[in-house]
């Protein structure tokens, strides 16, 4: 994840002006580079896609994926939907929250992990599931999660 740089963000989305739903692609792309979408991107995106600042804000705030402040190095999503509930995700969620010492939408003090809820990762025959960044993990136990988190935390240093 790079530090926020408005100029770099502007350059990154210039080719999307005429694409279908270009502003959505732009928001994804900016987040991929910087980990979030800074407020200063709103007027820039408005200008690029011929939208008002309010419209861009409306789009960016509508979708769960788009983050508006810098997240931890890893984003951990824990599935809260029915199939995972049937396999004890409520307990797993509680244990993960306790282990990381954060609630949903919060980042650990170390800055390593941001915890988010998610409704279904499409791996419902191997519940409970979590996703770390773009990687899905099935049949997750708290012991497995702790081991994984510790490995990732070491890599993050």
């Amino acid at each position, binding site marked *: 994840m790079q530090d926020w740089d408005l100029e770099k963000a502007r350059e990154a989305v210039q080719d999307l002006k005429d694409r279908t739903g270009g502003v*959505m692609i732009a928001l994804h792309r900016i987040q991929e580079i910087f980990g979030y979408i800074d407020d200063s991107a709103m007027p820039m995106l408005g200008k690029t896609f011929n939208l008002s600042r309010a419209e861009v804000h409306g789009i960016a705030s*509508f979708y769960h994926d788009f983050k508006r402040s810098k997240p931890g190095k890893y984003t951990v999503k824990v599935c809260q*939907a029915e*199939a995972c509930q049937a396999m004890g995700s409520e307990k797993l969620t509680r244990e993960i929250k306790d282990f990381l010492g954060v609630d949903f939408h919060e980042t650990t003090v170390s800055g390593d992990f941001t915890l988010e809820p998610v409704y279904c990762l*499409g*791996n419902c025959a*191997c519940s409970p599931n979590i996703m770390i960044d773009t990687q899905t993990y099935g049949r997750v136990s708290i012991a497995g999660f702790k081991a994984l988190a510790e490995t990732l935390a070491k890599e993050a240093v």
Partner: protein
Amino acid sequence: MVKLYIPRETTADSLGAELLVKAISTEAQYRNQAIEIVRNGSRGACFLEPLIEVETDNGRIGYGPVALEDVPDLFDADFLAGGDHAKKLGDVAALPWFANQERLTFARCGIIEATSVTAYESLGGYVGLKNALAKDADGIIEEVKDSGLRGRGGAAFPTAIKWRTVADCQADQKYIVCNADEGDSGTFSDRMIMEGDPLSLVEGMTIAGLAVGATEGYIYLRSEYPLTEKILNEAIAHAEAAGYLGDDIQGSGKSFRLEVFMGAGAYICGEETSLLESLEGKRGQIRFKPPLPAIEGLFGKPTVVNNVISLASIPVILEKGGKHYAEYGQGRSLGTMPFQLGGNIKNGGLVEKAFGLTLRQLIEDFGGGTFTGKPVRAVQVGGPLGAYFPNALLETPLDYEEFAKAGGMLGHGGVVVFDDSVNMAKQARLSMEFCSVESCGKCTPCRIGSVRGMEVIDRIVSAKDADTRQAEHIVLKDLCDTMESASLCAMGGLTPIPVMSAVKHFAADFEKGF
């Protein structure tokens, strides 16, 4: 050279398949054994993943579920020659789980290298498109009509009628949009076909384009499926290179272009008008209907919006004929349906069968009962907006009309099983909570009703006496009636279904607290 199949697919990947590929390659090199690893999709037996198959003279011999620590053992057991090992499953195609299915749409899934055009063609791929190119638009739509195919996304609207409507519209541009925003909990068939046989979707959309006169297509894919995105883009590139996409498809003079568009984690974008708004780069808020998307869809142009499975079923219909497809199924539910078994289930995964088997057959014969071994207490069919069925309703045949009669809906074919530890009042509250988190906010019954719904359920379970509880139940019923009849789309309109089914079949849970 021994050929090995290791899935490149989310389920297998979530259980360590990528690590296995590395470990097996290294081990083979170390032992000086020549292997070729083919990346197929999953065959759908999720409980066997990661499932490794070895091509031998006696068929494809499977081993699974394989853990990383099994790798040296497998080599010691000479698995490359089909040697015996505790994880050996034998000829995969002959396993009852697969042998008892009726695979039409998923016939190739998990068998072939997922993104290879040559492999796809070797098992009937692109025959459907060639047949379609030999017909006129009416001929294609007639074939789809004969198949009796109804939208597999959940609404079960006849696909041919939708296509006919778009075909009859006069416009300078029409679109084919594939709804791959598979957000319903308990469903994963869209993902599996897109990862395991993506070209069937590409071919299906191309045929749809020919049928209605559209030259541009979009696959609106949910962002929770990053691996799927990669695989789809590869498949599209391969189809273009082979002359099956782009200008002048196979020298026919017809053109069709296809693009993958990523959603951003909004469940409501699985609703077709909301999806179109999102694809136009807006907030995913639903539109009023009419006008139907078939008449005024993407950018106001006539648009076919179909689910992944509907479109991926088109190639086999054009290949083998609509009548062949319609020989499967019963009543008005014709053809096959890929049912997805998830939640608390021993042998979970994808089961493609003709409509008509009972829910119990699916859960017991294929699923082998619950994962925990405890009795089944509740089953939710059709995603988070589907009804909860008690054990007594498990004899219901899986058929659109039969399910509607029993107060449920088949939806996208997702089946989530719960054992007897489930608290159904909690599940009812979850339905309301989910609606409140994912509501697009356009209409009041859904936006406000879902929040009030959580509060009422909280008051019911914490009620001090029966009279108070009864009074709150009346409020809940009234609220659900309002949501059902006054919401703009299915999100608010169907959320009462799981809630009221929990109240109806599991009333006692509402008396014992969370």
